[in-house]
């Protein structure tokens, strides 16, 4: 799975993108976030406030209960501020 981080999520996690192999039993966006949170203090800090982050799976907004699969592109970012 390809993970992308934008804006301050990139700063806090210390990376813009990475390829990860999903551990067994991770099938939803919520489960993915919980797993990422346990990867270290940077991730825990970045993902602490779930209201402050948005997730897109294959370039479409996703909710915590939505499925994630090994070949997906998952992006994590703050609420958008363009325009």
């Amino acid at each position, binding site marked *: 799975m390809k993970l992308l981080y*934008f*804006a301050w999520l990139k700063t806090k996690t210390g990376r813009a993108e990475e390829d990860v192999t999903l551990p067994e039993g991770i099938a939803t966006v919520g489960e993915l976030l919980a797993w990422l949170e346990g990867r270290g203090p940077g991730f825990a800090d970045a993902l602490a406030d779930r209201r402050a982050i948005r997730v897109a799976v294959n*370039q479409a907004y996703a909710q915590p209960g939505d499925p994630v699969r090994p070949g997906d592109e998952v*992006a994590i*970012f*703050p609420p958008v*501020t*363009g*325009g």
Partner: protein
Amino acid sequence: MIRVQQEDFDVGQELAALTEGNHAIGGVAVFVGLVRDMAGGAEISAMTLEHYPAMTEKMLGEIEAEARARWPLEASLVIHRYGRLEPGEQIVMVVAASAHRQAAFEACEFLMDWLKTKAPFWKLEETGEGAQWVDARDSDNAAAARWTKRDPDAAE
């Protein structure tokens, strides 16, 4: 039409190209967003717009398609820049053209309201105290939500 680009754009040229040859157009509404020099009392020297290219194109395309489904538009255009911009520079241009003004005005507002809350862009402002990511505003969410209420297919 959707364009996401680093370079500046010429509003007059864009309008001329968009409306050329289409005499069914009776009204054109245009919004152009510029970089302000102040934010929350702090002076801004520049801002950098980051984006998620693949999703930006997709979301802007969906938002434009939604506008064209809701209003009888003859033409529409969204140009959004990314990269480092200084105060006074153009960030975004949204155009809605229709036979009559009401559809053009409404669609133009709708495009901007939805763009601001759905298109994956993030602003990093540079001030004297360093660079800071801009927070999303509740007022932008409220502005976007009013179009959901107005959707005739939506349940009240």
